[in-house]
């Protein structure tokens, strides 16, 4: 037995099999490494240029955002290979370019001075052909290499945005609630023996006029958002600032209707946990976990106590004590417009 055969036997006996990389994979490996290196160098160069304009205390509490990364192939050969590589893979996977460049860039870069660059998840680099990218390299130009002998294939330019203030870490619930209008704002007192820092009023926000007909008769309440209407809701005070309106009736779920505002529009839905649903004044039976937009111009009326498991029928002699009725009316936010002062006669 020859020595070569002995080696091949040993390898197969361990169960490890080495596949030969295709030329495309080899190309991907080589350019990924080079792109990663030149992208890092470009981003750090841009960062070091920007950070000199800011105080250390600003850099410590902020971050820059990578806005663009422009990759320019240095010669025709590289440009063609890169274009072919991306085209072939994009034919199979349309999101390949995004995934490839997400592997090239890191999530965060830092400088020695403490400033940092964050890369958005949606970030995608741009390949831009320059005049050099269309020209073949002459024999002499082929020797344009880095100081340590590496052939330079790409030029990369990075541009940064910001700086933006780093957010303090908060729980997902608190974060979600902070974005909803009506959430409580915590205002620490200022330790200042000098001047007061002025009166504080929150800006006007939409509220809801809620009328309930139940076993107690008719009740009326003007409440802010977000809001939960349901059985004994008023008893369960929510530390996150969710308003509640209690309904006293036989057929009503604990959390029957949830109302909230998002970007100036008011929505409502029946939570998944509600065993009963409602019928709207136009005859629509509300589905659980489905968002409905609350009309801002008219009163929206709901009859509660609908059990979809038994056909969703309300008896003709139903009373509000059993099947309560809820009216919602959007109380428009006070306009933020500043009036012109008038002389008092």
């Amino acid at each position, binding site marked *: 037995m020859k020595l070569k055969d002995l080696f091949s036997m040993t390898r197969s006996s361990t169960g490890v099999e080495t596949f030969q990389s295709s030329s495309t994979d080899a190309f991907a490996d080589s350019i990924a490494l080079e792109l990663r290196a030149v992208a890092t160098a470009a981003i750090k160069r841009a960062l070091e240029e920007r950070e000199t304009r800011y105080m250390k205390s600003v850099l410590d509490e902020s971050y820059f955002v990578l806005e663009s990364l422009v990759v320019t192939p240095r010669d025709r050969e590289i440009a063609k290979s890169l274009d072919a590589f991306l085209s072939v893979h994009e034919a199979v996977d349309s999101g390949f370019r995004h995934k490839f460049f997400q592997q090239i860039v890191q999530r965060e870069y830092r400088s020695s001075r403490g400033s940092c660059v964050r890369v958005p998840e949606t970030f995608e680099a741009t390949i831009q052909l320059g005049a050099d990218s269309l020209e073949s390299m002459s024999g002499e130009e082929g020797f344009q290499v880095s100081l340590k002998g590496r052939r330079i294939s790409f030029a990369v330019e990075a541009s940064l945005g910001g700086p933006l*203030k780093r957010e303090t870490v908060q729980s997902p619930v608190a974060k979600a609630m902070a974005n909803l209008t009506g959430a409580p704002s915590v205002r620490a007192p*200022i330790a200042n023996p000098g001047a007061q820092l*002025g*009166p504080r009023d929150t800006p006007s926000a939409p509220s809801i006029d809620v009328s309930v007909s139940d076993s107690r008769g008719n009740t009326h309440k003007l409440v802010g958002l977000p809001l939960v209407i349901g059985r004994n809701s008023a008893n369960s005070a929510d530390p996150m600032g969710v308003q509640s309106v209690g309904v006293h009736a036989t057929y009503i779920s604990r959390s029957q209707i949830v109302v909230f505002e998002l970007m100036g529009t008011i929505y409502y839905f029946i939570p998944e946990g509600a065993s009963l649903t409602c019928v709207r004044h136009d005859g629509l039976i509300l589905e659980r976990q489905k968002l409905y937009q609350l009309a801002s111009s008219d009163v929206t009326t709901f009859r509660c106590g609908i059990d979809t498991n038994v056909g969703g029928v309300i008896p003709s002699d139903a009373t509000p004590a059993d099947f309560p009725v809820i009216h919602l009316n959007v109380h428009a936010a006070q306009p933020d417009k*500043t009036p*012109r002062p008038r002389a008092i006669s």
Partner: protein
Amino acid sequence: MRCVHGATINLNSFGAMGFDAFSANVVDHIFTLCDGANSCPNSGSAATWLSETFSQAHPDTLDTQLKVRHAQLCALFPETGSTLLRLAADDGGIHMASIGDSFLWLFQKPWGGFGPWRCIDQMPRDIDSKGHPTQLVGSEVCDILHESHHPPVGRYCAVMMSDGPGLSVSPAQLLERVAVLGRAEPQDHDLAYLCRSLALQAQKSGCRDDISVAIVWIHYQ
């Protein structure tokens, strides 16, 4: 005397002109922020005119200037109105003036700059029980110009805001932003960053009005 400033103007105007205007006269160290009443269409132009006019050095007293400018504004932009915040720093100290419902705070860093920033003055706001302005330049009521003076000693930081962000940003948030400034002289980029972060904070707090914030840092050596 060293003086650096930064500003973020009309953050919420989304491409429209906006109703706020800021002017900086870096030669004479005069800074003005004006907020036009957004119920009147031409108030943005009136605010721009007013801020540019009052940022120029003038031999007359501010009271005299106000009377003249008010009459001119009424003629040029009828049925408008604008607040006026003005800060001037010279060898005699810091002179602050205001009319309307905008905010102007003055912070100082005591003990040769080693102490923490503290608010030493806030200009009065002319508002009624509903929070609406009771007097504006160019409106039917323009009577009293509030003025305040501080000696030329140490480090000061003045924060100017239109009423929207002024009502949305808490005192703690404001002080926390100013506290980023240390003893060293900031650059205009630093102050622009602080203004923007305050403006974004106000926007995040639900402010729907035009958001304008300006910071002026002054050091008497």
